[in-house]
């Protein structure tokens, strides 16, 4: 840890130097970023110079990723999943997480153009140790040169200009339209097949990498797990990985069982102490006797404040993710009420705040999904080494029934009725959800206490960040009377869960959970900046009313993992650049 900090300070020390050299307050950031993008992917073929001056966003993210797609069949990034191949391993020994590879690196270019290989490699090193040194050298001239040399070596790609497809994302070329060679159909088929094979290989190799880390004999290497997870965790390993990344599940295998047992017991006891409020209220109608004996004591013993909190939780749980079937089941709602209420009682400084009901859902959904997945695996008799300990129980009658369900292989948490679970399994899923939610919220406690100072600070940071990255947008907002609090309060309060669909939020959390410290606090602000700037061009042409309406309901319904991964990569760059700079300004 100590070593890493030293490295970090070196990196950020260099950053300061860049800012000092280039204008201190990031005024020349655009040119800096431009250069950055050029060193990473200067080889965009056949594109006019002024293309370079286009929106930084497009240059940095969509551009390179897209050009990589076209460049070679061994492309690092395919169909929305960035998997680190050889490039990643070249990072590993330097202790730098394999982040934003699609931005900095371009292994396929290096392969297809030996003359670039050297400089590309140099650059990785610079990122770690002394990366401004390389940037100092980057100037218009060498850039032009590399562009040219690449064009010469790959004349075949020269005329493939990006096609404007979507007015919202002028720089985004859909994966479904790869610019494949069209003259020669043999080439086309060949390339298509190679891409598919490569994609599957990468998924498999990704899984194997996780498998290796998660099943290591001694302690699980968290640093390694973070590096892998930053780029997305395979579905089936997500619950396990999240619990490890949050520090809920011990990295030492021999301690896992006992710790989980204790934590789940603690949760159960906690629920018993707060059950003077009728947590089973809804179920009580159907089965009054059973629920009373299980959970509720006379409600006269609960304080008025507790009742208020519970009332708020109750009405919010009812309207949590109303479009997803899972959240309509009484059993789901009962579990969420219990988890939220216990958390609120245990954290009197904040209590329950609207929006926390959103934050609990990824955990609940992932842990429920994991339970189903473990049952599926149990039936086929594989993967047991990756099970979360003590989750399954051979004596559990409800579990047996699910195991015997002919539809088992097709069960998915999205539509599964948790009413089918035994009280044992329900309690485990609730307990794991409770503890993981607690760990997440520990990072953002200031967001939910009186006057929500954490959120106010984050909103201010976002504004500050935009003033550096996209001052024109800020000026436009100012002239239209837009206040950041008006649109970004919710982004902070609900961690963008109201703007982006749950599956994509879950993917984002893979990255957030891999950040140190966890990304829910400061890194999130950079993600919000990337999110806002994604719409910058449109917003600049709108008036107050349209801006607010747009940001109330940003067009993310068509988003894929690829979109959020690009956004995360961009946030990472800005985080690296400005995290230190903002301290510098104080």
């Amino acid at each position, binding site marked *: 840890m100590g070593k890493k900090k030293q490295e970090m300070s070196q990196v950020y020390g260099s950053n300061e130097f860049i800012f*000092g050299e280039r204008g*201190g*307050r990031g005024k020349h950031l655009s040119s800096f970023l431009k250069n950055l993008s050029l060193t990473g992917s200067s080889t965009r073929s056949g594109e006019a110079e002024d293309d370079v001056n286009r929106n930084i966003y497009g240059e940095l993210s969509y551009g390179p990723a897209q050009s990589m797609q076209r460049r070679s069949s061994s492309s690092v990034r395919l169909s929305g999943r960035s998997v680190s191949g050889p490039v990643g391993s070249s990072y590993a020994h330097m202790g730098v997480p394999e982040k934003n590879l699609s931005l900095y690196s371009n292994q396929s270019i290096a392969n297809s153009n030996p003359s670039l290989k050297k400089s590309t490699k140099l650059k990785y090193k610079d990122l770690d140790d002394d990366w401004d040194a390389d940037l100092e050298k980057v100037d218009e001239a060498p850039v032009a040169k590399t562009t040219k040399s690449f064009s010469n070596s790959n004349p075949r790609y020269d005329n493939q200009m990006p096609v404007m497809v979507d007015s919202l994302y002028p720089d985004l070329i859909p994966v479904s339209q790869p610019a494949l060679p069209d003259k020669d159909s043999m080439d086309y088929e060949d390339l298509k097949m190679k891409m598919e094979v490569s994609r599957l290989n990468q998924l498999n190799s990704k899984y194997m990498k996780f498998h290796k880390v998660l099943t290591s004999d001694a302690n699980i290497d968290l640093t390694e797990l973070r590096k892998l997870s930053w780029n997305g965790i395979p579905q089936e390993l997500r619950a396990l990985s999240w619990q490890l990344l949050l520090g809920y599940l011990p990295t030492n295998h021999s301690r896992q069982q006992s710790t989980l047992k204790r934590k789940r017991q603690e949760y159960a006891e906690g629920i018993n102490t707060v059950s003077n409020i009728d947590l089973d209220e809804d179920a009580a109608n159907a089965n009054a006797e059973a629920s009373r004996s299980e959970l509720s004591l006379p409600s006269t013993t609960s304080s008025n404040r507790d009742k208020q909190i519970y009332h*708020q939780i109750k*009405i*919010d749980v009812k*309207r*949590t*993710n*109303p*479009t997803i079937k899972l959240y309509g089941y009484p059993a789901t709602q009962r579990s969420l009420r219990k988890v939220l209420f216990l958390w609120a009682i245990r954290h009197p400084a904040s*209590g329950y*705040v*609207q*929006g926390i*009901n*959103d934050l609990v859902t990824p955990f609940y959904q992932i842990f429920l999904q994991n339970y189903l997945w473990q049952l599926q695996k149990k039936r086929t008799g594989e993967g047991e080494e990756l099970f979360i300990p003590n989750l399954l129980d051979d004596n559990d009658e409800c579990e047996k029934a699910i195991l015997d369900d002919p539809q088992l292989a097709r069960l998915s948490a999205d539509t599964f009725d948790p009413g089918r679970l035994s009280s044992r399994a329900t309690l485990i899923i609730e307990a794991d959800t409770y503890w993981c939610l607690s760990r997440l919220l520990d990072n953002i406690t200031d967001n*939910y206490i*009186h*006057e*929500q100072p954490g959120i106010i600070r984050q909103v201010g940071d976002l*504004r*500050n960040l935009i*003033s550096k990255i996209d001052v024109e947008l*800020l000026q436009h907002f*100012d*002239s239209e*009377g837009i*206040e950041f*609090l*008006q649109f970004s*309060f*919710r982004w902070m*309060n*609900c961690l963008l869960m*109201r703007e982006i669909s749950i599956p994509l939020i879950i993917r984002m959390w893979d990255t957030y959970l891999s950040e140190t410290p966890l990304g829910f606090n400061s890194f999130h602000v950079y993600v919000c900046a990337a999110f806002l700037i994604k719409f910058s061009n449109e917003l600049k042409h709108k008036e107050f*009313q349209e801006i*607010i*309406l747009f940001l*109330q309901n940003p067009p993310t319904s068509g988003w894929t993992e690829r979109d959020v991964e690009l956004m995360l990569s961009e946030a990472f760059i800005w985080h690296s650049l400005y995290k230190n700079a903002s301290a*510098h*300004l*104080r």
Partner: protein
Amino acid sequence: MSSRKKTLLKVIILGDSGVGKTSLMQQFVNNKFSHQYKATIGADFLTKEITVDNNKQVTLQIWDTAGQERFQSLGVAFYRGADCCVLCYDVTNEKSLNNLASWKDEFLIQSNVLNPQDFPFIIIGNKIDADDSKKIPSLQKKLNNVTNNQLGGLSYPVFETSAKESINVESAFEVIAKMALQQEELNEANGNDVNDDYNDAINIHLETDNSGCAC
């Protein structure tokens, strides 16, 4: 600034969580009701153009706020420049009725309006579609009590609505628009332009942010 052709009227909807603020706004603006609204965080914003007093074309900018008390400190960002404030309660929830006065006070503190004494408020009791057995017993008496004793005896217009069955929503908002227009004209006559105020505040902030670096 105020010489725009369209008259913009800013309306704030306040009230306890779950009384149906979002549903009221959605029913008025989009003529629909849904069980799938999530809890409002911060504030939601919708607009609608309507004609007031037979000939005057206005745009209502409606801010639908979050009901939970924790969010009250946010008011400054949303209440400023309001032309009318809608206080909502739920006719099946007595507590939401009793809280109307504190919502009004909170609004006046944070919005910093020039004429707190005669600023236009309107009261909406929502969910009249609910079963009579669920409604607050002797509602009228309790409502009178609240308006006379807690709201200062001012005769604010009161509407009983159902956002679900679209009862009285339209007529309530017609009155809201009229009241807001009067307030807007009053502000204009006083030469008060809240928006200018507001931009200055931001610019100061920007300068402080940028002036820290001395190198």
